[in-house]
């Protein structure tokens, strides 16, 4: 009973702030509401005893990804939505067509689904007996799903290296436009590198 009430509260907060994200014209307000929404989703995970997933939800989404969003917003100083609307005049009409389609898809899938509880070997008692959430998840992940796990980490590594390469290229071009790059022997002068 308590859990049901808490679920309704957190779900309402998550959905409410999610609606706020797309209706705010101030982009930073939308960001804050998005963080709040993610934290509420983490709370729902907590209610289902998925502690590890809840923590990772906060760490990855509310922490890491949205900090990057915040940085981008602040560096570009996107204070008003109006200027963005001028940048993308067609987007509004595309959205007008796409959103009903996606909504219809959701409704169709929701109606076609059969709502029964999914059985699995991991109820609360077995998780507690097996040494807790983290231990069980770790065992499963590194015994049964090691190859997919490693492939996923490799893909992430490739993305990271790609980002570094792109950023480094732009950084070098930026340095070349500087006055001190005229000496054309050293692209980056020594005093910049040894400035520690």
């Amino acid at each position, binding site marked *: 009973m308590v859990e049901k009430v808490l679920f309704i509260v957190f779900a309402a907060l998550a959905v409410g702030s999610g609606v706020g994200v797309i209706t705010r014209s101030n982009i930073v307000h939308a960001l804050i509401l998005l963080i709040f929404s993610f934290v509420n989703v983490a709370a729902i995970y907590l209610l289902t005893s998925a502690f590890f997933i809840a923590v990772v939800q*906060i760490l990855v989404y509310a922490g890491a990804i949205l900090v990057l969003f915040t940085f981008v917003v602040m560096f570009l100083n996107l204070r008003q939505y109006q200027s963005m609307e001028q940048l993308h005049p067609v987007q509004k009409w595309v959205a007008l067509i796409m959103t009903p389609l996606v909504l219809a898809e959701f409704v169709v899938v929701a109606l076609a689904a059969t709502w029964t509880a999914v059985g699995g070997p991991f109820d609360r008692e077995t998780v507690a007996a097996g040494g807790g959430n983290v231990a069980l998840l770790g065992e499963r992940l590194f015994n049964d799903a090691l190859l997919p796990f490693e492939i996923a980490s490799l893909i992430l590594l490739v993305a990271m290296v790609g980002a570094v390469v792109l950023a480094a290229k732009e950084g070098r071009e930026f340095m070349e436009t500087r006055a001190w790059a005229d000496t054309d022997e050293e692209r980056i002068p020594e005093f910049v590198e040894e400035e520690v």
Partner: protein
Amino acid sequence: MTEFIILIIKLILIIAVSVGMVPFLIYFERKFAGFFQSRMGPTYAGPWGSLQSFGDMAKLMSKEDLVPAAADGPVFRIAPYILFVPAFVSMTLIPFGPMDVDIFGYNVDLVVSSFDAGVILFLALGSLAVYGPVFGGWASNNNWALLGALRSGAQMVSYEISMGLAVVGVIVMANTLNFVDIVDAQAGGFWNWFFIPQLVGFVIFFVASIAELNRDPFNLAEAEQELVAGYMTEYSGMRWGIFMFGEYVNMVVMSAVISTIFMGGWRAPFEFLDVIPGFIWLVGKMLFFIFLYMWIRWTLPRYRYNQLMDIGWKIFLPLAIANLAVTALIISVV
């Protein structure tokens, strides 16, 4: 029902401890600052100036609550409070004593939540603490404040990574993510504490925690000579006071976390000293680390921003990874 009441009492106690320590810490900080710089520190209010913090608080509360006309009102008002949320939640993970203690006939665990993924939760909350300064600085609508906000955000994000990797060494050794079990793994005297085998991780964690707390020598976010007061430029009165309060509460929490992870938590350095209750040991260790923070703050000059980033990314990150690799190798071989 009794469990619920005990939980509420524990929560109130924890908030009272972490908030109640702050006025005294501010007084000590100013006294130590005087001591380190051959000055007197506060002397007028009360004996040896001991009522200084309360005088300051009365002054801050009686000041006008000022919100600049160009500021983003709601965000500007909320931002100072954001720092408290991660601090209080992290504090609930810290064990203050053994499990199943008999207090007035009730079986009480001296920790609010023995959380399965405690260490990761602490790191996750640390990443939420970034939003306080960042949104505060942005909402001020002031160039210095925005620069301070960006600096503090970039600094906290950079040092979080080496901080997280430094803890992983301890996690590998203790074989758990639960703070309660980490303390239990350090039972039996100070030679079992993790700061000896994990000395590299300990140093990285401590220095990174200074950067996380935005304290000198890493307080680039509010560098007075360059940015007036960084993200706090437009804040005044009690709202500014709440920012400062939040930073001190975070210092208390961070010292508790370091004591728990690396210095045996509530455990005594020798077994025969176990007669002294655990929370006294924990608070003693916390005060030691808080003194260390103050000592460093008033002794070292501030780093330059590129130096700060170089230390974080080029020294601490490789060092933390190497530390983790060596630890994992030794654990798997032995």
